[in-house]
């Protein structure tokens, strides 16, 4: 009842593990798949091993979380075995990748074997990578095109909300040949320790995730659904089944869950069952509620 198809991938449910959460090892990806995720995205993988920013890298705030991991990853040269191990759980494994330019992205996509690629052009706190690329439609289009040329697998582009109009970068991704867009990555944010005046994160600032950003993400998904022809995957602040319904009604074909995994490792199976129960009660299918807000 919850099965979904997105850019050719069959999902048993529309709930995926978001990039950067439990995504560094084959073991952890496998666990999340076994905990009920319909697909899993890896931690973003780059050209060289990267230790990321110094701690504190993540802090829980009253509303949501602030993080600046700094894209720690063992590099694409070492990562294939983790993906292969993750595949054993039987759900699609999507490789999230990042780089400084189109050629780095293509090198990685050409070398890695995964069910799809998610291009992280939206990390708000990794200098030279991420959002500095993702706010420029021309770069987004160019990188997407290059990756499409480098691989036969479906390519998703993950967008940053830190722009004046997310449909501009969404359209650029579509023009570059993307098979889907993912919205959103974290919002730029900062927290300061008032006892000392120190920024709390080792990197001074970081990205805001968790429940507080959900209305921003829902609006982004809504706008992208209106503007694009390719499917939109929603992400940002999901912590319960009601949130998933809201995203799908806004126009998300599927969703990703990140921060909320910390407090509830069983969130995928919990949401799946509640979502099924809700749909049954309402006599609705996933297709019925997909983009529903646009018909009203």
């Amino acid at each position, binding site marked *: 009842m919850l099965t979904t198809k997105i850019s050719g991938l069959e999902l048993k449910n529309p709930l995926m593990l978001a990039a950067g959460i439990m995504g560094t090892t084959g073991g952890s990806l496998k666990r999340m798949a076994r905990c009920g995720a319909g697909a899993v995205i890896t931690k973003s993988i780059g050209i060289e091993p990267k230790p990321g920013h110094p*701690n504190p890298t993540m802090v829980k705030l009253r509303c949501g979380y602030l993080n600046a*991991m700094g894209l720690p990853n063992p590099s694409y040269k070492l990562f294939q075995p983790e993906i292969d191990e993750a595949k054993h759980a039987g759900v699609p494994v999507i490789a999230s990748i990042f780089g400084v330019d189109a050629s780095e992205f293509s090198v990685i996509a050409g070398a890695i074997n995964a069910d799809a690629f998610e291009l992280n052009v939206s990390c708000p706190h990794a200098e030279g990578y991420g959002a500095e690329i993702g706010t420029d439609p021309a770069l987004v289009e160019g990188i997407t095109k290059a990756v499409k040329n480098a691989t036969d697998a479906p390519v998703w582009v993950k967008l940053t909300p830190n722009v004046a109009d997310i449909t501009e970068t969404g359209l650029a991704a579509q023009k570059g040949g993307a098979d889907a867009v993912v919205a959103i990555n974290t919002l730029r944010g900062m927290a300061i320790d008032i006892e000392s005046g120190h920024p709390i994160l080792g990197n001074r600032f970081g990205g805001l995730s968790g429940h507080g950003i959900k209305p921003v993400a829902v609006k982004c998904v809504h706008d992208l659904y209106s503007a694009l022809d390719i499917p939109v995957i929603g992400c940002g602040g999901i912590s319960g089944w009601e949130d998933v319904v809201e995203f799908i009604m806004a126009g998300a074909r599927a969703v990703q869950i990140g921060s909320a995994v*910390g407090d509830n490792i069983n969130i995928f199976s919990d949401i799946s069952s509640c979502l099924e129960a809700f749909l049954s009660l309402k006599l609705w299918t996933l297709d019925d509620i997909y983009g529903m807000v646009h018909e009203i």
Partner: protein
Amino acid sequence: MRPVDAVITKFVDETPSTRTIFFDTFFEQVPGQFVMVWVRGVDEIPMALSYENAITVHKAGEATSALFELDECDSIGIRGPFGNGFGISGKNILLISGGVGAAPLAPLAERAASSGISVTTMLGAIKKDELLFGKRFETAGKVLIATDDGSEGRKGYVTDLLDDNDVDADRFDSIYCCGPEPMMKKVLDSSIIPEKVQFSLHRYFKCGIGVCGACCIDGLRVCKDGPVFRGDVLKDTEFGKFKRDGCGCKVKV
């Protein structure tokens, strides 16, 4: 939660390489839980609470060295306690401690003793003056000692004490173990029933709150599902074999 500002009130040099840092804030904990200790401008690292208002630090690298350089009235940021501590059960328990592994075990020994549980501790260190919290364990019960150089107790690893006739591991209801991973692996691989042993693990922590996955052992989050795990959960995992460095690369333990 944001870091709580904990002002340092006192230092106690426990051994040449470990120092206990007391602060003005008390944290209620289940022994075996951990806190994230923020040395502002340097790093944030996981530490056991060796008392409700203290950590005991072994000098290992940059952050721990920075902790040694602080003065009274300086402050550190503390988040936690996080994770799952030791489950105390049985009438007769054995603690196996290696080095600074004594930090979470000493409060466990005291809590257990004060509820009438009989506590035996196998305490190990590289040499006599590195034995940590010997007095606290003695007050709580019986103590058996091993040092690598034989300067006190049995010469050799603390796990060697298990081979002696001194200790019959089978007669304990529960066993609690913390120390260097190779030492803990020896305990796991010994003849002791793994279900009986609770291990407190160390891994490289980033978020410390179960989100990022940096600390995973075969998908188990040491920071959130642990740091205390029962031996049977650790059997046939990476434990004792591989760990991950800051980049997530596999490295030998």
